[in-house]
């Protein structure tokens, strides 16, 4: 996967007055902005602020209620607590190998070179030796490592991570963050939903602070101010049971 670093540089992600939600209720409301190609962005905000919904929208799994999301990049998306059926009789190797779907699709054979690539990815997340274990026997941290290995194989120019470090121990978190740094160095665009503000300040140049609407978006040190964080908390706590139709223009 080291080959073609230039190839990884995808197009930017353009958000134009995007409203995303469920049953007409907005979870992300009138959001506009650009996620630059090759940027490393943290998405921060209280629970229910629309962070996961935003990633879902960018990944194309949820159509906007209004506005548009534009990107020509290939996107890999790791949802929060990915809905992997752990009782399914599947080996770790097979789970990781599915990262090659785009290249092999329905019927393409897995050749010798692919097996090397898969072994590399499994080694990169420190799961060598676990290949034949059923996924049901993995701990939460090992599962997340396996899913990161699959992300490696997806070889996408945009990588969306939804709370990738929740319920993950320090060692595993450090290993996974190393992979995020590697993706950033490879000029891939990485967007990660996170709750650890110290980590965001230390590692993520860009931050979007969101509470249904964007509170602040830009350089991390300008965004994560005490004032902005307080605003975000207040905005998220507002709940309107009988909301009228929204007519706000872009």
């Amino acid at each position, binding site marked *: 996967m080291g080959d073609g670093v230039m190839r990884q540089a995808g197009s930017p992600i353009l958000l134009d007055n995007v409203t995303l939600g469920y049953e007409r209720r907005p979870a992300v409301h009138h959001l506009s902005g650009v996620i630059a190609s090759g940027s490393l962005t943290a998405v921060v905000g209280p629970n229910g602020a629309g962070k996961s919904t935003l990633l879902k929208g960018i*990944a*194309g*799994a949820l159509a906007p209620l209004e506005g548009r999301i534009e990107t020509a990049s290939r*996107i*890999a*998306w790791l*949802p929060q607590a*990915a*809905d*992997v*059926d752990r009782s*399914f*009789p*599947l*080996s770790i190797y*097979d*789970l990781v190998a*599915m990262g090659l*779907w*785009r290249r092999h*699709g*329905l*019927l393409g054979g897995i050749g010798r070179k692919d097996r090397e690539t898969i072994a590399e990815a499994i080694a990169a997340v420190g799961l060598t030796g676990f290949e034949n274990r*059923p*996924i049901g026997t993995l701990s939460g941290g090992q599962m997340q490592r396996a899913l990161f290995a*699959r992300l490696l194989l*997806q070889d996408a120019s945009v990588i969306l991570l939804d709370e990738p470090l929740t319920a993950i121990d320090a060692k595993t978190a450090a290993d996974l963050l190393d992979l995020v740094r590697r993706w950033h160095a490879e000029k891939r665009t990485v967007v990660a939903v996170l709750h650890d503000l110290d980590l965001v300040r230390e590692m993520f140049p860009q931050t979007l602070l969101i509470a249904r609407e964007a509170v602040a978006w830009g350089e991390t040190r300008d965004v994560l101010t005490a004032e902005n964080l307080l605003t975000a908390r207040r905005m998220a706590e507002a709940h309107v049971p009988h909301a009228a139709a929204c007519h706000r223009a872009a």
Partner: protein
Amino acid sequence: MSPTPPLATARHEPMDFHGLLIAPFADFGFMRRALAGVAALSLGAGPIGVFLMLRRMSLVGDAMAHAILPGAAVGYLVAGLSLGWMTMGGLFAGFAVALLSGLVARTTVLKEDAALAAFYLLSLAGGVTLVSLKGSNVDLLHVLFGSVLALDDPTLSLLAGTATLSVFVLAILYRPLVLECVDPGYLRSVSRSGAAAHLGFLALVVMNLVAGFHALGTLLAVGLMMLPAVAARFWTESIGGMIGYATVFGLVSGIAGILISFHAGLPTGPTVILAAGAVYAASMMFGAHGGLVLRLLPRRHLEA
């Protein structure tokens, strides 16, 4: 090619190995046909049952069997005991229910099981009403219980063709079917094949049930699909292994069922399913993966 086994002849055979297991097939053409029939059924329905079980759709086969029953009955009303008409009727009713419930599940708030429940009940009620309106004296027993011992050439061809098609289509759909169970979100993010694979798979379920009802009847055809599959779960942790076990279990149950019904003069369809049930019970007791006996055996835990 009498559908009733000539018991007298059978009972006069010496009851040794040859007389029990070989002679019935060597002496009677209809027994050889029945053997070919259950072999074909096991090859197609076994793997499909494994996927139904893994996709937590073990009861879908049963619902589908109810859904195709009226279609087959209407085919019978139109043209009598005609393979073509009953097959077409069953396929039509089954596909319609599968498509409609898939459509409702993907466009409304209902989950697929709820949508399927609604449509198969409607299909069943509609079919029964149609049959009674005609006022015809339909021998529904054939549709319900089939006739393994009266398989003619066209029926055997249908069974073999269905099995062949099933194996090929399953090979093509294998990856999306597995991935859609393990991680549906991921499949959606890399491919749009999930919905198509699901519908293709449901079509296979319907086709196998329709083929199966000529031999075992609509309701019992589900038995040869599900019982070997759930028994296979107790013997291996790999999907390929389960498919192998399920096929062999289906075959063994089929042969045992035919022979027992031949020697004891029992109805063949139910005997085949009861044989499969015995395999299931034995697997549940002694299975190497999660079987009862191993679980209850007092064994020390391991060091690591």
